[in-house]
């Protein structure tokens, strides 16, 4: 009887855990699609897919005190090129929190394109320093 109760509780908790992980997965697309009032310039904004040849491209637009995208996860590969295309209506400083870190200055009205690679697997935050906002987290896999 005790064992049966334990098994039942186990099944319930496991299914509860599975449910919560679904929430995690579904939270991502909503976060991505919410702020679409400003469209990034040329390169595809968030559909960055890692591939050996082209690498990862992230389009970033800073306008009216808002950054698009904000807080999104973007997949990338170790050693492959990661390109940020940044357009901003104010002076901004972009920080890439890899080891070593990179800092890119963007002047008001300018569009800046920067390319770098990340050599260690991990998550790398790309951040708009003046606004104090995480633009994307690069999920850099081996």
């Amino acid at each position, binding site marked *: 009887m*005790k*064992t049966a109760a*334990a098994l039942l*509780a*186990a099944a319930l*908790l*496991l299914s*509860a*855990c599975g449910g*919560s*992980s679904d929430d*995690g997965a579904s*939270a*991502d697309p909503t*976060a991505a699609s*919410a702020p679409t009032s400003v469209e990034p310039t040329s390169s595809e904004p968030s559909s960055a897919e890692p591939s050996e040849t082209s690498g990862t491209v992230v389009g970033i637009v800073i306008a009216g005190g808002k950054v698009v995208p*904000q*807080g*999104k*996860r973007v997949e990338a590969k170790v050693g492959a090129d990661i390109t940020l295309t940044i357009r901003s209506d104010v002076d901004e*400083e972009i*920080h890439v*929190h*890899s*080891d*070593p*870190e*990179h*800092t890119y200055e963007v002047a008001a009205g300018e569009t800046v394109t920067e390319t770098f690679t*990340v050599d*260690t*697997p*991990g*998550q*790398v*935050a790309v*951040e708009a*320093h003046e*606004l*104090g*906002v*995480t633009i994307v*987290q690069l*999920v*850099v*896999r*081996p």
Partner: protein
Amino acid sequence: MTLTTGLGAGLAAHGVGGSTDLPIPFIYAMVGASWALTISFAVLALAWKEPRFQGSWGAGEPDRRRPWLAVVGMLLTAWVLVALYAGPADPSNGGLQAFYIFVWVGLVPLALVAGHVWRDLSPWRTLTGRGIWTYPERLGYWPAVAGLFAFVWLELASPDPGDVVSVRVWVGVYVAAMLLGGVAFGPRWFDRADPFDVYSAIVARMSPIARGGRLSRNPLRGLTTVPVAPGLVALLAVLLGSTAYDSFSASPFWQGRSLSSLEHTLTLLAFCIVVAVLFVGAAMATGGVTPEQRRAMPGLLAHSLVPIVVGYIFAHYLTYLVEKGQTAFFALLDPLGRGWTPLGDPGVSYVLSEHTSTLAALKVTFVVAGHVLAVIAAHDRALVLLPKAHRLSGQLAMLLLMVAYTFTGLYLLFSV
């Protein structure tokens, strides 16, 4: 300013820049969760029915502090303070890195491996005397709770954790409080009010090493000797809640929002309060005890939270300590930022980050091992505290809560 100068901004992880861990694969989280659950119920249903690990709660007179360690402590502290206050005012500051990495995170493995050597090292204990007044015992651990919350606030919710000036101010206030309190109340002040000393003392109860290395003991027996005083549950809740908040605040859900420092602070506080309230509720959820016994229950079970905290801290901070720790070590060798490299060109080894599967397996192992020790500790103490008729039912709420803590921990490791 070169491109490689890391400017620790408000969102830099834990006050020190650089990359963070990959999420663990889903299957690792599931395997960990299944083990945690299975072992939990096995302990409840099949394990021993008489307490086995209860140590003497008084634990006798503490040792004398070892003078050579006090000297080492003074030298290390002086070194770090010189680096912090006289070093460069940017995140390459070795004192800042040592504070966040060696003091905050390094304290845990040190206490686990070597016992409460923090007490011997503490320069504040060395510099203060026997005290003028008796420490008011009704305050319990609450001053240390305030200190720990102030630290996790600085690290996780303040406007700019990587800002050297903020850390200088924080450390300045901390040192002043320790010296004044130490002069006023003597060594008892550090046993109850120094956030780092208290943290180390509690983790050290899980160490196989006791009494200055002259005694080895079962960590589960040592754990039962955590001194119970007001604020103990709050102390552990701050440690566990803040680490959970740290993971949570890196999620896309949270980073997609632009929030003020006040909103971060309130959320951090809410995490700690939820952890504490659930624990108090689960500890009290038993029949057959008097109201006074029920009120004493959370404190008497609080030691069982320690392994959960330690397991999760290890999972959360392992790469941070091992990899960022190397950078911090090299930065400390150049305390004034003059470009000194006495050990040659500093190169950091990313051996953990590069082996992603091993790292994920290690992290899950830490969380599950902490969970299992916690469940065993709670079970053993429950056998002492609960009347015979309620021994199984009275433990159930606590067991479910620990499973919930562990699942949450694994879920955060998997999703962020």
